[in-house]
């Protein structure tokens, strides 16, 4: 009888152990399945978000800056998503962003050059202010004597009274159209007669003494 009881106890222990073993295994398997499902869901969300972001970047409907878009594109690329649509979108977006970046850089360079040119021109114009003011002084003189005094002073700018004066009436495609050329003396007297100065000095050529040897004006 005792022998029988011992055998029974062993069988019970065995059943218990088997129960524990098989029960635990089954629980582990369902946990793995759950984890796999969760991972798959997370991956799908990631893929869908990547597609959404790529399409937005492609259509230009995102508020991101150029740098933020490149950062997001790099992040998406780092996912190594094995999806043909995502791969195609990455190629297109990368192409678009690269083109846009190059265009933005070109525009920025153009703007920089334009500002540089404008500053240079402004500096040049400032250099001509003295001449422009003297010419305006002739035009606005109150009497013939006053105008003649202004003309004498203005003539000091020139190498001779016969220095050619060119008046630009129009600029088309970088080519100047001129009025009939005149001389410094005649031009200064013209200002006295017409009593208005609607010009600006465009360029001057000077001799070694700094005197003007050719003057180019533009109509304002």
């Amino acid at each position: 009888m005792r022998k029988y009881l011992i055998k029974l106890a062993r069988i019970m222990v065995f059943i218990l152990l088997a129960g524990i073993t098989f029960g635990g295994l089954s629980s582990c398997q369902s946990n793995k399945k759950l984890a796999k499902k969760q991972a798959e869901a997370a991956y799908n969300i990631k893929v869908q978000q990547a597609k959404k972001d790529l399409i937005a970047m492609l259509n230009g409907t995102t508020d991101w800056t150029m740098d933020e878009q490149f950062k997001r594109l790099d992040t998406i690329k780092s996912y190594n998503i094995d999806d043909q649509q995502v791969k195609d979108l990455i190629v297109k977006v990368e192409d678009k962003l690269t083109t846009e970046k190059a265009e933005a850089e070109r525009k920025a360079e153009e703007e920089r050059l334009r500002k540089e040119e404008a500053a240079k021109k402004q500096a040049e114009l400032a250099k001509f202010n003295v001449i422009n003011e003297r010419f305006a002084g002739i035009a606005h003189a109150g009497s013939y004597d006053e105008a003649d005094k202004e003309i004498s002073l203005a003539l000091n700018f020139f190498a001779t009274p016969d220095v050619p004066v060119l008046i630009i009436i129009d600029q088309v495609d970088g080519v100047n159209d001129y009025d009939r050329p005149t001389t410094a003396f005649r031009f200064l007297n013209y200002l006295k007669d017409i009593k208005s100065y609607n010009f600006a000095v465009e360029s001057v050529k000077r001799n070694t003494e700094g005197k003007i040897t050719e003057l180019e004006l533009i109509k304002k």
Partner: protein
Amino acid sequence: MKNITYSILFLLGILMVLPAAAQEPLNPQRKQAVDSLALEKVRDLSKYITIIGSKDTPWSEANRVIDRAEELFMQGSEIGVSSLLRPQIAYYGVRKYFERLMRLNYSKVEIQWYKIDYVSDLQRQPDGTYVGVITVFQKFKGYNKEGRLVYQDTTKKDITVYVKRKETQIGGRLVGFWDVLLGDMRVKETQK
């Protein structure tokens, strides 16, 4: 022989191309600039006429301005003079007109030009010259030594303008310019 043939063909080609180039119209921006330049010359003339006619202008200044005003005209141009006191219109050479204007028998003269505008747009001629007509209205007032207005009229005048593209050497380079010259100034009507 072959060279001569090629030369003849080349010359013929040039002769065929040249008239076409001469007919090439001005682009609108350039046309506007040339139109404005011609109007500007007429406005300059109006200021010269005011200076020459004014009794306040020193004699030497008036003569200098006559020289400048004369340069605005083509050689041989004539200027019409009308009066409410006689039916006929007298035409004078440019210089003579200005000299008469300077010596008008009034103590004070006021001349004002207004409504200066094209009546006929600049049209390209076969020789490349652009020709147009600009109309002006001139208000003339003559006063006696007591300062009383003794004569006044308003005259409508048509001025023919000629604009031609020319080139000249300046500082060793060829400079293209538009040469505007005024032609006859005809009286169209005179009113009080």
